[in-house]
């Protein structure tokens, strides 16, 4: 049995100081209150319609994400260090994106293999030489952090395309304040509610026209998308229009939205659809999610897409192992946050090692997401491992392997009892004129015992995240 880092208890069983007030309070509550509160929270979430769709279960399958009332608490000082590391990382990633689509200095310096970048399906040749406002590509980044057995935080994954989950962060906080206002009065918990203001500020700062009041819209694939609730929620919080592809039209390399009073020019599109679906005249011709001509308007500098086209090259899992090197190359600094050790199976030595150690490793597709299509060695049967081995051998370059991480645990209510469950943390970084983030992020929790998969599509739940000043 591996030693997990327990966020709440020290190894000697004592409660960590930043959890003690919280725990005392929960222990002083009558047990039936917890069950009632959970029921009340479920009802509220459902009534407000905070659901997500699950693919493969019919178009209208909507589920609630399980919400746990015990928050994930982080000490203020520790968070400040994490925040520095996160900022450092997204600065380097944005520099990398600009470089890769312009002079490719990092390739010429031999810091990472050229074919890994230019031969990657996430590399958008169409973006070479295209300038974007402030040279920023990923305006909204979600960086997944995990805390291993040694108590150290590692970056597990960068999400630089259309990271989701921030609405749950906001709704979880709103729910906690509704259920337990006294806890917030007692302690100094850093706020997260202003995230939509920061996001709007960021989007304004990358408007292509220097005008004071740019028209910003949120582009969603529509109501059947799994994250539709979040799209609608954020648009509402920012007071911007929520548009679908059919609402936009491009003329003279300029984007307009169709309104009841005629066309209106659009300056910034916070898009929550993938590159492939943005513009049928350039990318997938069968897409109806984005308007034809959008990319052309973008290249002409008449509209900003947020995030930029082609950011997938920087969060591809085969590029991930090189991020510490990017930080050194572009910033001349040592990375504050370490990566998880990673084997690239395109390398013969790494492949040989991985094939030998499959039962201990986690193997992922370089372009997978949402926890789909990965192998968790220790949790798999022999037959599953052998089947996965054949997939790897078919195309080793499509896989990476990592040690099975001993994700930290936080006590979580399961059937009215507190039980340790594994978590990860996704802070959201906003990059415009400034780099901004709210304290904490979305804590995801694997609700099943011993499970290491926290993705909502795989039955994961969520918790409020508190950054606590003492």
């Amino acid at each position, binding site marked *: 049995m591996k030693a997990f880092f327990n966020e709440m208890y020290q190894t000697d069983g004592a409660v960590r100081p930043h959890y003690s007030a919280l725990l005392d309070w929960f222990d002083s509550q009558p047990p039936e209150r917890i069950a009632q509160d959970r029921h009340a929270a479920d009802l509220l979430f*459902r*009534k*407000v*319609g905070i659901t997500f769709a699950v693919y493969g279960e019919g178009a209208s399958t909507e589920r609630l994400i399980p919400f746990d009332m015990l928050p994930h608490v982080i000490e203020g000082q520790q968070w400040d260090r994490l925040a520095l590391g996160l900022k450092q990382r997204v600065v380097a990633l944005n520099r990398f994106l600009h470089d890769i689509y312009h002079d490719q200095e990092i390739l010429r310096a031999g810091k990472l293999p050229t074919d890994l970048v230019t031969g990657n399906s996430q590399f958008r040749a169409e973006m070479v030489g295209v300038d974007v406002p402030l040279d920023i590509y990923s305006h909204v980044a979600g960086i997944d952090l995990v805390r291993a057995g040694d108590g150290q935080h590692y970056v597990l994954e960068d999400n630089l395309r259309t990271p989701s989950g921030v609405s749950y962060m906001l709704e979880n906080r709103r729910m906690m304040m509704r259920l337990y206002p006294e806890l917030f009065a007692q302690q100094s918990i850093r706020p997260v509610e202003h995230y939509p203001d920061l996001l709007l500020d960021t989007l304004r700062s990358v408007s292509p026209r220097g005008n004071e009041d740019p028209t910003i819209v949120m582009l969603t694939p*529509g*109501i059947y998308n799994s994250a*539709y609730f979040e799209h*609608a*929620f954020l*648009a*509402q919080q920012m007071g911007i*229009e*929520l*548009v*679908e592809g*059919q*609402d936009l*039209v491009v*003329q*003279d390399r300029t984007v*307009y*939205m*169709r*309104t*009841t*009073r*005629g*066309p209106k020019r659009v300056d910034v599109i916070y898009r929550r659809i993938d590159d492939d679906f943005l513009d049928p005249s350039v990318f997938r011709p069968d897409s109806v999610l984005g308007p034809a001509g959008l990319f052309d308007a973008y290249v002409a500098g008449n509209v900003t897409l947020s995030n930029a086209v082609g950011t997938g090259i920087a969060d591809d899992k085969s590029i991930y192992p090189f991020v510490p090197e990017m930080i050194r190359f572009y910033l001349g600094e040592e990375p504050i946050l370490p990566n998880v050790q990673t084997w690239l199976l395109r390398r013969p030595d790494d492949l040989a090692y991985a094939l030998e150690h499959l039962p201990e490793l986690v193997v992922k597709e370089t372009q997978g997401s949402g926890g789909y299509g990965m192998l968790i060695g220790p949790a798999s049967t022999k037959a599953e491992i052998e089947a996965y081995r054949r997939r790897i051998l078919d195309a080793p370059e499509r896989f990476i392997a990592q040690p099975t991480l001993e994700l930290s645990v936080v006590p979580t209510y399961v059937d009215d009892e507190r039980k340790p469950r594994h978590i990860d943390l996704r802070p959201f970084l906003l990059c415009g004129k400034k780099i901004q983030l709210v304290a904490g992020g979305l804590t995801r929790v694997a609700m099943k015992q011993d499970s290491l998969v926290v993705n909502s599509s795989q039955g994961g739940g969520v918790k409020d995240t508190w950054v606590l000043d003492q």
Partner: protein
Amino acid sequence: MLSRTASNLYWMARFVERAENTARVLDVAYRMSLVNRDPEVAEREWFAPLHITGTVFPFQGHYSTVNAHSVLTFMALDRDNPTSIIACAQQARDNARAVRVHLTTEMWEVINGTWLELQRFSERDLHNKPSAFFEWVKERSHLFRGVTSGTMHRSEASQFLRLGSSLERADNTARILDVKYHVVLPSLDDVGRAVDYYHWGAVLRSVSAFETYKRVYRDVISPMKVAELLLLREDFPRSLQYCMADVYSIIEQLAPEPRAEVLRMADEIYSRLRFGRVEQIFEGGLHEYLIDFLSRVNDVAGEIHNTYFRAPVILDE
């Protein structure tokens, strides 16, 4: 505002109104069936709701017999019937989800709550107490109307919403009145007798007009007066004239230009109701008049669509 948003608001309102009126249609059919014991007549009576909602063919594809049980099931809870109450609630919610940004929390919660509760409704619940079910559907619609009027910002969004409600209601009142045409009396001798009286009373009650009728006419129920109340009165909120006056005034405010075709069409329908006489309507046949009205309403709806929801993008420059 976005054309699609306007369209979603308009259709959301239409589906809420349609669900309510389907409940009203079924309610009147159910009330009429209570005074009848003859199975052949019963079959004709239960055909009426199918006729007036234009769903005879889809119904026959799914059910073999026409009776209270099959028609109620089909029109209330059958998800395969796009005009059923449950399907209307689903479509109202789909449209509402697409425009949540423009709804108040309370409005969304009524629409979403109705949909959630309907998921739990069983056929047994429906057949045990049909009237209780219809009452509940109507109450949810009343609640939505009240919450909308009490919380929604008066903007273009609220106008498109009202446009949908009023147009749908005009259409539905016309259809409800037409029930009477389809429910043939047991024999010609029954015209003007108790059964006939009961049928017209049921029509009035189904549109919540029974008390109004008594107060306005202080008289026994006569077909011509019922028709006058539901078609031509300017002061009854479910009458055709009242609804079309509302449609006309909204379109006047939303019209892109004073000579817009959509405005002319709305004005034409409204004027025919304003200057119409019930005697003339009966001379030409009430059923024929209603069919003509429904087709005109359909044309206006088409023009609303062309004008606001699918307008071609033509730039000035």
